[in-house]
């Protein structure tokens, strides 16, 4: 393999010793910030970026492969790793993403990105914005990436024709007419692509900074609340700042949340092509919680019905419909009288409600919830009636008389009318304060813009027109070209240009020997 390389009497050819000497002198003369910058040199290399990205990938994968606390039961992890459990735990293997070494990697990555961006942004900006012209000689020493033609056009006609062709192809064209006899042209397109990587890097930095803001100012909370309940977020069941309370800089909202209602809606038969089959529980279509935001004076600031994927936002705090849970209360009508039964005991491991009705009688209710019991299609409860002698109407070796009701159904048990209204179900709300959200979304936009910019290539074409002899209509056209990507597409485009120039403008390729300044290696 060979390629042509330019040799020139530049500092590239100086002996190493001289270079080192000059570097040492330069370092001694450098200001303090420059010296710090030199010390940080190791942080700004692409090689380090490659190493860090690879290490982050390996570490992240370790978190997927190793059982992580929260995803896998701790007892199971202990059993699997036996005596090594403590060691591995101390090394953060079961909490990879919050381990000191993973965070250290992230911090290193951050600095690599930060310092690297500072280093490379300026050269990229110059490459994207600078206009340069090349003379015929400069083109001649451009190595293999050049074309040369004899043209039968005057320099003005030639310039006009070339400009027109290049502009039609989407190039920005600039001309240098400082020497009217040897006009020069610089055409370029896709300049913005040079800034793509840096844009993406800046986006990542903003994302990391935003997440730090979220850590110091944000919180998360969870609350199981039943309809009619009002709660203070700061006193929610699982209120937790994103960082230890002593370092936390955020605040909690002064308003409270009131749950007006909570409903679960199921897919009805025929609503979808997948009708619920007999014996298969109905599928929940959506959970709806009707919430009000109440200010300290009791005034309703906002009221919305939230569902999964449709949260309620109040400033930088958002309430999400996350889960639900039966509270153990059952709403019933016994003998036409509304009652609330509370599960207060257990029978064979199942929660049971035992409620005195007076006259020595008691109502026993076994609730069954469709989300917990795959064998039922609707929430049900089975009722038994007891008196001082035992189950009312019970016969030896036979199941005592009972009444199985779905929610909304009525029936009679030993002469007692019972209606099972519904079980009480609490909505599980996830609450989050995220002051970083707007910045996070902005960082996403910047990252996406940057990565999309990277798809494109920067194409640059330099042209120099050289008059031949004394005839005005005889000029040589020298072309040098460069693309940072998409070389084949660029070559195809150049081919189209050349075909056009040869067929329409009568260009004739120029045969040349290699200039003396070039050497083949």
């Amino acid at each position: 393999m060979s390629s042509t390389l330019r040799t020139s009497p530049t500092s590239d050819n100086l002996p190493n010793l001289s270079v080192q000497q000059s570097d040492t002198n330069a370092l001694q003369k450098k200001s303090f910030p420059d010296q710090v910058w030199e010390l940080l040199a190791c942080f700004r290399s692409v090689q380090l970026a490659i190493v860090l990205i690879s290490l982050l990938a390996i570490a992240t994968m370790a978190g997927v492969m190793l059982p992580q606390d929260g995803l896998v039961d701790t007892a199971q992890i202990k059993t699997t790793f036996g005596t090594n459990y403590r060691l591995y735990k101390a090394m953060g293997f079961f909490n990879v993403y919050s381990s000191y070494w993973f965070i250290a990697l992230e911090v290193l990555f951050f600095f690599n990105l930060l310092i690297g961006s500072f280093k490379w942004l300026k050269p990229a900006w110059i490459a994207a914005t600078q206009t340069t012209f090349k003379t015929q000689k400069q083109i001649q020493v451009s190595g293999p990436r050049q074309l040369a033609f004899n043209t039968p056009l005057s320099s003005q006609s030639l310039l006009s024709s070339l400009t027109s062709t290049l502009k039609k192809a989407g190039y920005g064209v600039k001309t240098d007419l400082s020497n009217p006899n040897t006009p020069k042209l610089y055409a370029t397109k896709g300049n913005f692509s040079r800034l793509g990587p840096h844009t993406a890097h800046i986006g990542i930095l903003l994302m990391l900074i935003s997440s730090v803001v979220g850590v110091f100012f944000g919180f998360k909370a969870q609350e199981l609340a039943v309809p009619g309940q009002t709660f203070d977020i700061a006193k929610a069941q699982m209120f937790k700042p994103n960082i230890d309370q002593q370092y936390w800089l955020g605040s909690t909202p002064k308003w409270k949340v009131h749950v007006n209602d909570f409903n679960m809606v199921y897919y009805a038969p025929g609503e979808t092509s997948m009708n619920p089959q007999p014996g298969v529980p109905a599928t929940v279509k959506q959970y709806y919680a009707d919430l009000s935001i109440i200010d300290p004076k009791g005034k309703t600031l906002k009221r919305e019905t939230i569902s999964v994927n449709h949260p309620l936002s109040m400033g930088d705090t958002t309430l999400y419909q996350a889960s639900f849970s039966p509270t153990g209360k059952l709403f019933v009508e016994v003998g036409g009288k509304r009652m609330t039964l509370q599960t207060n005991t257990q029978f064979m491991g199942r929660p049971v409600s035992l409620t005195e009705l007076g006259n020595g009688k008691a109502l026993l209710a076994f609730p069954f919830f469709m989300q917990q019991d795959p064998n039922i299609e609707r929430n049900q409860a089975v009722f038994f009636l007891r008196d001082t002698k035992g189950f009312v109407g019970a016969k030896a070796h036979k199941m005592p008389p009972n009444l199985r009701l779905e929610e909304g159904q009525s029936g009679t048990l030993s002469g007692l009318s019972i209606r099972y209204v519904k079980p009480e179900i609490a909505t599980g709300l996830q609450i989050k304060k995220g002051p970083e959200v707007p910045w996070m979304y902005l960082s996403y936009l910047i990252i996406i813009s940057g990565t999309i910019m990277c798809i494109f290539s920067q194409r640059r074409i330099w042209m120099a027109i050289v008059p031949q002899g004394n005839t005005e209509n005889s000029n040589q056209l020298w072309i040098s070209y460069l693309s940072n990507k998409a070389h084949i597409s660029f070559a195809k485009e150049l081919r189209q240009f050349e075909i056009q120039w040869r067929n329409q403008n009568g260009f004739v390729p120029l045969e040349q020997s290699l200039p003396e300044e070039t050497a083949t290696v």
Partner: protein
Amino acid sequence: MMTPADWEQNFYYTGLSLQGIGLLFYCIHALKPQTWAREGGWGSTLLAMLCLGLSLYFRSIHAQYFALSNMYESLMVVCIGIQLAFVFLERWFKLRMLGLPVAALLVGTLFYDINLPTEIHPLQPALQSYWRSIHVPIILLSYALFTIAFLSSVVFLLKDAVSNIGGSSPKLAADGPSNSYSDKPYYAQSSVEAIESSLALDKANIYDEITYRCVAFGFPLLTLGIILGGIWANEAWGNYWSWDPKESMSLVTLLGYGVYLHLRVNGAHRHRTLAWVSVIGFALMLVTYFGVNLMGVGLHSYGKIG
């Protein structure tokens, strides 16, 4: 009267058959290069893509939502993505060797796909969002591009094994269309023939270029898909990122291809090395797409196989 379910099935099998015919054409082309065979393979792949698209359309009508909620449907979308990327690349770059592996992979994948559970289930609340119709197809399209990148890398490595073309680095290639492979100074010719000859020389290396193009397009798509997934998660649960196995592995895949792109920019590495990194990236993508689903845990467990 044919129902949407019948149309769905008919179009799927027609698509599979057409892809099989495409494979046949490419086999003939591999044995004896003929333009008609290559064109036949390309046309069959194009028609197969249209049939699979129609199959997905009728499935969506049947399901009453955009049918992209299980492995069967997502694999079908990946196949459509591969076909779409391939028919475009084949037309643009006149690829001679990529048709056979692409067609073979598609036929195998479509056969595998039909054996996956195809029942349609009602959408659970978390999946009832317009984000599902944006986040998932974008991710799957990136997977399709990475698959083409992988096949292209394999072809490149095979060609490299035969003719040792992978020893140079892209930094040299960046100087011009073909100078890193040419023994003849491009300068000295200065004509259409020179550019034609440079293209001919690049054909030895075109599969490296295809790999790069696919990764260069797939990477922003995967980035976009992950970010949109994060926004969706924040809308649904109040968490951009939960270190769920699927999320973590998709980050690993992104980082893997990030390494590829940085190595490419760095330019000090050989084409052969880059091809191997692309192969590793594809392996990571497979773990993300299939492997994590086998675990059946985390927020993406609805994507599990079976």
